[in-house]
């Protein structure tokens, strides 16, 4: 076991440095093989750590700087089952993306492999970090390769602009998080999250702690893409190369949501236990709003990648709702939902990439009916769409039922409506696009984002065939998510992992007893009822088919319906203007709103 946590972070970095050294002369195949082998090694390491952390949380003090006399100056890597699972997810998604990119890129940029390995190292470190400043460092280490990878197509101005927006908003969020870290350090004098939790445990939540909490959370919300910090998501995904989108939407955003849970429970656990209502209102409200907004926006998109990005916004909203309920069942559900969403979204982005590779465009209108001969791609897309819509027993449905169960415990049973809305709208958007492209149903689609006028394909022009190796990772990911829902005892294991997460890190690093967050200690009888998922999947199919069938209506009725929808959605589309000044204003507004809501809640209770 020994140094395995540090190795999992160091190995990709060292290999990246080696690749950089040989890069001008190395053939593409060598770089592909080295990258895939390294990522596979990281997958193995994370799997071992997951198995090891199941009994006892693995705590690794970098450089051997263990705490003495209860003072911690070293950097701990704290690996509980949830953190190990997140790192494993990151490595698996990067591996799938690497295999996909073998035949996808005709010419990979010189630094593509190097940057992906740095990206992976950053993500693994981010999942393992047990010290809040180390979390910030890995936040930036994870983000910077992402910025550069997003703007790979430097000949295309939209890519540059998308990368620029992404970079500025994420860096601003990171700086706000740093301000919060500075404040919490000033209050407690320590940076290790376990020790922070213990130091804050007896104290009252005063203004400084509230502000620090909001600032740190805002930085992580920006990474997670929670409304109103989500505008960069659609911009970045629309222009980033497909293998990069797979990792961005598949893991990076989910890691942001995971970090929200980890930091809030570990550092502010006792404050949350004292003021549960304020926290619940803030997070469940923001998450529910995001779920609805993302679902509506994804229905109105014709650019396939932007559609998928908006649906990510919606699903992150549902995940944050699960976390914000502060119920172990709901947190367990959010975790399963997160993993299932990552696998499905990765597979769907790969399908969009296959279409781009074959036809040179991802505009649903331009692709109408052209997919008729690509049956397998269509099948995979349909499975992905139904999975997003929550068809049981696929993993996402299990997550939704667990969140629903937790919501009922917390007295918020109405939340199921929001989760179902998110599933129905996002699933319908994908199914509609799939039927439009692969079956040729539906006439011209109406409103939606305009694709860039000269979308340069990421590959060297349309290809005539799709290599099978490009379909394999997506098929494997979808098979995995179907299997996820069938694993016996997964719900119980997730519940126990959620309990460990909510208990914080204080006990693991030897700073004190676990936080007072957790109320119930065992998993009540839980039967995942299939009617909820089946209903939402059926709803998605109905919405998709009816929206496609609209072009058979008489002209005037069709025009009236189109006009009504366009008018209703116009303000939302105007909001997503892509202008960076607007997005920064929303960042400030979001910070102010959160401070107000939490401060009122803390003072009021």
């Amino acid at each position: 076991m020994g140094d395995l946590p540090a190795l999992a972070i160091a190995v990709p970095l060292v290999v990246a440095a080696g690749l950089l050294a040989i890069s001008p002369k190395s053939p593409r195949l060598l770089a592909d093989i080295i990258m895939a082998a390294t990522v596979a090694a990281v997958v193995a390491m994370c799997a071992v750590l997951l198995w090891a952390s199941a009994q006892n949380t693995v705590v690794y003090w970098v450089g051997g700087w263990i705490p003495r006399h209860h003072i911690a100056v070293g950097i701990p890597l704290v690996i509980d089952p949830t953190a190990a699972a997140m790192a494993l997810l990151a490595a698996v998604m990067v591996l799938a993306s690497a295999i996909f990119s073998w035949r996808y890129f005709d010419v990979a940029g010189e630094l593509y492999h190097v940057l992906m390995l740095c990206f992976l190292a950053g993500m693994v470190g981010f999942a393992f970090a047990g010290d809040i400043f180390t979390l910030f460092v890995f936040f930036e280490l994870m983000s910077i390769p992402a910025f550069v990878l997003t703007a790979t197509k430097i000949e295309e101005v939209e890519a540059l602009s998308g990368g620029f927006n992404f970079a500025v908003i994420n860096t601003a969020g990171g700086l706000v998080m740093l301000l919060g870290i500075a404040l919490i350090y000033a209050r407690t004098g320590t940076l290790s999250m376990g020790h922070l939790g213990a130091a804050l445990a007896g104290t009252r939540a005063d203004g400084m702690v509230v502000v620090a909490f909001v600032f740190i959370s805002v930085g992580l919300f920006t990474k997670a893409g929670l409304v109103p910090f989500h505008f960069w998501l659609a911009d970045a995904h629309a222009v980033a190369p497909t293998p990069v989108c797979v990792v961005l939407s598949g893991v990076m955003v989910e890691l942001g949501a995971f970090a929200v849970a980890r930091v809030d429970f570990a550092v502010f656990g006792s404050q949350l236990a004292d003021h549960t209502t304020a926290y619940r209102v803030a997070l469940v409200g923001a998450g529910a709003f995001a779920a609805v907004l993302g679902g509506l926006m994804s229905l109105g998109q014709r650019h396939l990648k932007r559609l998928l990005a908006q649906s990510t916004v919606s699903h992150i909203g549902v995940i944050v709702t699960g976390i914000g309920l502060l119920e172990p069942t709901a947190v367990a559900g959010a975790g399963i939902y997160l993993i299932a969403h990552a696998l499905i979204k990765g597979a769907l982005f790969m399908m969009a990439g296959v279409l781009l590779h074959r036809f040179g465009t991802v505009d649903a209108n331009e692709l109408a009916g052209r997919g008729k001969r690509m049956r397998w791609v269509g099948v995979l897309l349909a499975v992905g769409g139904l999975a997003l819509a929550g068809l049981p027993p696929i993993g996402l449905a299990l997550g939704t039922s667990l969140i629903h169960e937790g919501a009922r415990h917390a007295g918020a049973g109405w939340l199921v409506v929001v989760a179902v809305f998110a599933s129905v709208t996002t699933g319908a958007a994908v199914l509609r696009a799939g039927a439009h492209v692969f079956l040729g149903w539906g006439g011209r689609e109406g409103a939606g984002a305009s694709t860039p006028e000269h979308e340069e394909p990421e590959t060297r022009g349309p290809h005539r065939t799709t290599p099978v190796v490009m379909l394999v990772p997506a098929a494997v990911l979808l098979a995995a998510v179907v299997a996820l829902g069938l694993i016996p005892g997964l719900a119980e294991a997730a519940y126990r992992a959620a309990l460990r997460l909510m208990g914080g890190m204080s006990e693991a690093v030897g700073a004190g007893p676990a936080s007072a967050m957790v109320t119930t200690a065992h998993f009540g009888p839980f039967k995942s009822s299939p009617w909820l998922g089946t209903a939402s999947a059926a709803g998605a199919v109905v919405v998709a088919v009816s929206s496609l069938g609209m072009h058979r209506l008489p002209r005037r009725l069709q025009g009236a319906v189109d006009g009504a929808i366009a008018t209703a959605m116009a303000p939302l589309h105007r909001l997503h203007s892509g202008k960076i000044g607007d997005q920064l204003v929303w960042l400030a507004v979001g910070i102010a709103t959160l401070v107000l809501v939490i401060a009122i809640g803390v003072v009021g209770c």
Partner: protein
Amino acid sequence: MSVVPFAVAGWLVVWGLVGMIRSTRLIHLTVCLGVLQAGTYVLLISIGDAAGAHVPLYAEVSPDTAAVDPIVQAMTLTDIVVGATVTAVLLALAIQADKHRRTTDPDELSPMKG
């Protein structure tokens, strides 16, 4: 403990953000991000400061001497490195944008609407 350093930090952060919001040139935007970062540096260092405290080097003084906090100084150095890297990436993107569109107005370069 004087309020002035914290007021300066707050001022820099607010004006950096306002500058970024109102910016009409990408390079100006990048520099405003730098101003925001400078605000965080000032905040971090002020936190570690104490009146009359010594530098945190104990070669010639007894270990009981009060010293400023070296941890926040290390955090500031890390922040500076991060800031330098991000600034480099943003400037590279701005130069490429200028090359292709002959404009660096962020509003004109917005990727996609809706």
